[in-house]
């Protein structure tokens, strides 16, 4: 019964999707630009032609993520923050069932290897989010790389856990810093998340105004949040 009903739902959805595909109007191939006057070309074309002059970042995606759609990014960081908070609240309420679950420490080779590789992974993550405005990558990708370093620690170095309080502090501070940068833009130029720093020269590390600054904070925040999520789910003690 339930299976038949589900298949019916799927069929309806499939028909809807298939009928939406007919004709060439889905996708960037649609000749949207010609339908409208100059002012109303689609977002992508405008960003591709103007973003580098307006923000100074070579990576158009980075400038879209941080400036044009910066509020989305703030919201998304908040979503991840909610997930980390909610997960900790769910897993730490009620009775704690933790007895004799202490696994034996990992072997010396694994332990030493993990401790050796961990800083290198952090360095790679930092590289990815610092160069986000020039090359592919950015705050989220770099943060995820940092978090994979934590994954390694939780898997390989049992008994030696990252300091959760310090992770939480990094998480809060970088979130606050993101909002404060936005509010400084509001105070300086009357617009939230305004790019108030100088654009600098193209392809230089210190360019594109606030984009690398915000990406660093996003990277720290995403890294510490995902690290916290991993720690909570792995059952490590706090």
């Amino acid at each position, binding site marked *: 019964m339930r299976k038949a009903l589900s298949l019916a739902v799927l069929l309806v959805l499939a028909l809807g999707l298939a009928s939406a595909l007919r*004709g060439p*109007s889905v996708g960037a191939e649609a000749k949207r630009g010609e339908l409208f006057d100059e002012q109303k070309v689609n977002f992508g074309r405008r960003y591709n032609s103007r973003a580098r002059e307006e923000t100074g970042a070579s990576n158009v995606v980075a400038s879209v993520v941080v400036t044009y759609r910066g509020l989305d990014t703030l919201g998304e960081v908040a*979503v991840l923050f909610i997930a980390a908070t909610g997960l900790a*609240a769910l897993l730490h309420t009620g009775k704690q069932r933790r007895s004799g679950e202490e696994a034996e420490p990992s072997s010396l080779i694994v332990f030493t290897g993990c401790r050796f590789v961990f800083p290198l992974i952090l360095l790679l993550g930092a590289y990815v989010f610092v160069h986000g405005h020039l090359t592919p990558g950015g705050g989220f990708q770099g943060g995820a790389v940092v978090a994979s370093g934590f994954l390694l620690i939780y898997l390989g170095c049992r008994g030696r856990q990252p300091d959760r309080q310090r992770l939480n502090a990094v998480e*809060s501070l970088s979130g606050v810093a993101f*909002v404060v940068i936005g509010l400084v833009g509001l105070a300086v130029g009357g617009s939230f998340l305004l790019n108030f720093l100088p654009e600098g020269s193209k392809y230089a590390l210190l360019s594109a105004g606030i984009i690398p600054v915000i990406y660093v904070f996003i990277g720290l925040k995403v890294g510490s949040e995902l690290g916290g999520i991993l720690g909570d789910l792995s059952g490590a003690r706090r």
Partner: protein
Amino acid sequence: MVSPILLIAVPLALAFIIPLLGLISQKLTRYVPAAAMAFNFVVALLLLPQVLQEPWVVQTAGFPPPFSIHLVAGPLGVGLSLLIALVGLVVAIYAIGYVREGDVARYHTLYLLLLTGATGMVLTGDLFNLFVFFEILCISSYPLVGYRGDRAGIESSAKYLIQGAIGSSLVLLGIGFVYGLFGTLSMADIASSIDSVSPMKVFISMAFLITGFGVEAAVLPLNAWLPDAHSSAPSSISAILSGIAIKAGVYAVARVVFTIYGADTIPLLVLVVGILTLLVGEISAFSQNNIKRLLAYSSIGQIGLIVFALGIASASGVQGALFLVVSHALAKGLLFLSVGYMIYRTGSMEISSLYGIARRMPVSSLCFTIGAFSLVGLPPFIGFPAKFTVIRAALERADPVFTALVGIVLLGTVVEGAYFFRIVQGLHFRPPPESAAPAGAGQGEAPISALVPICLLAALIVAVGVYPSVLTDYLGPAARDLLDKAAYIHHVLGV
């Protein structure tokens, strides 16, 4: 100079600070949501007279509207954020004393973010930004439903999460179609070029968006999660979910339908869905023995009425719907809050175990009665002018179909009246059950930190009920904000 962006940015920053504050003192964290909502209340109040003159389009990142995310702080957006701040403030004060066990700092973080998400939803003018704030609202409500960590809470929260996740995927698919069709995400920009695309494709994207947002709005086939989630959450969260979260879902659907696709696309189907939701909700509520489940089903019924009023799609119909939104947010908040301590004192959610509690908790019972009467639509309370406006709007259409539907609405009201009178009579006049075992949680009235918000809500319900013109003067511009597509486009794009 206050800017509407502060309504979103300041609560977000405060929510990020809470964990830091928790390192210093756990007790301080309890006051942060109340402080943030008080701030929002003041800001929204300051903005309201200004946006009644002309909507304030706020740009971000210093680029003109269609090309970066923009907020549209019109009468409706600021008015709804005022409502959110008011109910949020009241419930936050209630929660200071009510939420004791568990991870209190995290509770307050999530609670504040939930309200921030709702505020962002009603203010934003960008489709994808609407989705992001919608996700903030949904994702923070999942762990809050299961906050107590008991069986029922976690189970309903998991089921809520599964349905919510499918809903948001559908919204995202719809956004993909919209972007493919129009190459833009600004709602005003989409609305201005809606005629250049074939209606079939427009319909498909609309169907995805409405179905996705409809999960949170709890219209008929999509509301399986609601009774479970609302009844197993802590009472303060039930009040917010019923009072604010569903309304945000309805707002998203209404904004997408009215602003993007235009009011004339409303088919009879919407009216029928609204009426069916109303009937199913009220009839299921009638057969409930669990007080919180009953209130949850009653919320479904009220949502049905709101959808019906929106489906009338005339100015007076939308005014009635907005009036209902306000009245239901206040009344249902009041009901859940006053029931919260009754359940805490008796240790049971069965209606029969609450019999005769008026002797022990007179103020709470009186306030419950006020809320119940207001929901049914009795005269001196806010529910009466709200329902009256809706019914008058439906009869204005002078259409036999609408007259018949009004008959069904009145039938629903009768059912609603029947079960609420049953409870009120039980609370005041039935003898308490023999097995009224005092759970050791203290007897007598709720503490003062709970009575203040409850009485505040009750006073508001009576005050607006006696002087409805406080609200009705403002509802006209708000309804125009939702209905008048051309003006909306004009304000955002300046053409």
